[in-house]
């Protein structure tokens, strides 16, 4: 009998060891919101013309989430994820942030930090130089804001790290229409960006739409909800033309979430693959406006209403599905992507524009307000063409993060990724639910990643100046991301 008991225990332990890769460790969770509202006045980015904001209509925030598992009281796996109310985050700034965090937390693997931009078009410039011709006086300078941005987010990461404690997580999926396809196809084969549809020549919306609202909910040891992630396939540009600082629809989303779930809930906004999407409607706008006005809501409040409803639906369904020991793995790599080839024609057109713009600015410096950014945009194409002479197969190294958290996958990319690519990843992913997160770092001020269909159609977002990486590189990104996700489910 004693022998049988020992045999049973040994057998049981053997089964547990076999299953170890399938079981997770206790998850530790820390969260912190930090204010990154700039000192005014400041230049805001997102349009070709220079805009100086003298008013902050809403605060801008960076929202930090730290996830950790441990073995023998040492970090086994880590993810530090920061959602930022900005248009883009230059890759060099992310490196600076990592250095800053490492100085404060020497034991942290800072390669496991990633930041995403919500793509609000009413936030400060972050590219160190060359985006706009900003006055040197009377306006907060770019380098001042960059320093502030790094300091604030470093503090947020340190605080989130130091406050982490045992917790649990659940995931949910619902739906809300917050993003509409903005690329319009016409009968002659061309496309427009945010162009008219009330035309005889209008044929179709060029690409997909993605109405998934993916949510993650995080509770502390006491069962209090401390953070959530909301994934939406719509960039934050409902009020993108204003001369003001504004977090766009994420502000009313966060306000609404805190009202319902608690003032201390840290809300991360992740924008899914949405390069060809935006919150503005391209048809039946009058009918949509009427319904919104009958509800007495502004357009941003309406977007927030839809998103919050979807989050609530998910929360109600999954709140009893908390997991304290989810499988947690975080893979980071540099993925080489083939750059889109600049043709001689592209180069000649761009060069002609640049020369003409330089002359106009030289004749009238005020012309820089409307021309400087567009000139720099096309000048980048000129430089790419010149680089191609010595590098006939130019490649861009993109930092790619793929995370498994229980049944869900999180995967990042640095672009305004067209929705078709995101849907390809989600469709092929082995995960139950896949969060695609775009704009996690940007070369310069960011770049769209269009489909083949879009390149044929042309127009802003698919022309050569808009796109460092073309459809070929997009497919490499999709295939590698899917392979990595599959690898995290291999056991």
């Amino acid at each position: 009998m004693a022998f049988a008991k020992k045999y049973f225990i040994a057998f049981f332990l053997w089964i547990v060891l076999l299953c170890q890769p399938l079981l997770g460790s206790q998850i530790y969770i820390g969260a912190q919101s930090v204010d990154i509202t700039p000192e005014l006045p400041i230049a805001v980015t997102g349009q070709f013309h220079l805009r100086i904001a003298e008013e902050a209509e809403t605060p801008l925030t960076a929202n930090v989430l730290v996830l950790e598992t441990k073995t023998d009281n040492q970090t086994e796996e880590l993810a530090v994820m920061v959602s930022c109310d900005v248009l883009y985050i230059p890759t060099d700034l992310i490196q600076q942030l990592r250095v800053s965090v490492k100085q404060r937390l020497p034991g942290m693997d800072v390669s496991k930090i990633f930041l995403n931009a919500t793509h609000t078009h009413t936030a400060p410039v972050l590219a160190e130089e060359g985006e706009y011709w900003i006055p040197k006086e009377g306006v907060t300078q770019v380098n001042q804001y960059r320093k502030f941005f790094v300091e604030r987010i470093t503090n947020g990461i340190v605080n989130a790290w130091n406050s982490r404690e045992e917790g649990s997580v659940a995931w949910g999926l619902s739906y809300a229409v917050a993003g509409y396809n903005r690329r319009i196809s016409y009968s002659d084969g061309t496309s427009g960006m945010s162009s008219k549809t009330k035309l005889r020549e209008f044929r179709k919306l060029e690409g997909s739409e993605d109405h998934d609202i993916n949510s993650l909910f995080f509770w502390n040891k006491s069962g209090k909800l401390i953070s959530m992630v909301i994934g939406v396939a719509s960039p934050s540009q409902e009020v993108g033309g204003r001369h003001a600082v504004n977090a766009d629809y994420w502000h009313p989303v966060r306000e609404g979430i805190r009202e319902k779930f608690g003032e201390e809930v840290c809300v991360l906004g992740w924008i899914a693959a949405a390069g060809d999407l935006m919150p503005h409607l391209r048809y039946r706008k009058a009918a949509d406006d009427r319904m919104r006005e009958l509800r007495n809501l502004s357009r941003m409040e309406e977007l927030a209403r839809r998103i919050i409803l979807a989050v609530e639906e998910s929360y109600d369904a999954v709140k009893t599905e908390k997991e304290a020991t989810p499988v947690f793995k975080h893979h980071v790599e540099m993925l080489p992507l083939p750059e889109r080839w600049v043709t001689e024609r592209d180069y000649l057109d761009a060069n002609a524009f640049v020369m003409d713009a330089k002359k106009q600015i030289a004749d009238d410096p005020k012309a820089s307000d409307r021309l400087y950014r567009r000139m720099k945009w096309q000048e980048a194409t000129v430089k790419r063409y010149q680089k191609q002479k010595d590098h006939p197969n130019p490649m861009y190294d993109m930092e790619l993060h793929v995370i498994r958290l229980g049944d869900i996958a999180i995967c990042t990319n640095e672009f305004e990724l067209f929705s078709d690519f995101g849907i390809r990843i989600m469709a092929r992913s082995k995960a139950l639910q896949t969060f695609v997160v775009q704009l996690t770092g940007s070369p310069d001020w960011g770049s769209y990643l269009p489909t083949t269909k879009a390149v044929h159609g042309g127009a802003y977002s698919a022309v050569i100046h808009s796109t460092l990486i073309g459809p070929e590189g997009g497919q490499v990104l999709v295939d590698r991301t899917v392979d990595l996700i599959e690898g995290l489910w291999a056991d």
Partner: protein
Amino acid sequence: IVQDIDLPMRMVTHEEYHHSKKMRDEDLNDKVRAVEFSRRIAFYDEVVKRFETQQSVPNPMYPVEIHALRLGDVVICTNPFEMFTDFGIQIKARSEAMQTFILQLVGPGTYLATEEALKGGHYSAIVESNRVGPEGGQVLVDHTVKMINELWSD
């Protein structure tokens, strides 16, 4: 407004004719399958007959009944097909109505596929699935929009 209009039919190619004839005859010539797969036989037989008709009627047309009904600020418009969404969106985008209801399958059906769908192929975009093709779909859209906008011409 109610109107009967003619839409250009989707033309059957020689290759499609021979394929449909082969598929039809394989079932038809088997006693068991001739009964069990009678719907499939009819599916292919229609294409065979359409091709044969084309020999004497080079521009065959397909008659459809369309309704456009104004009710205040909204319009309701119908079509008899399983209409691909792009056509519906075209109508809605070009309609003068504040809100446009599109009502499909007001009639016998068959898919009405886009050019892109035809290039992709497969059920719903193959010739067997479509009496009317993208060309006819565009005629339907343009005519429907014209009918709708006439209801707002005052």
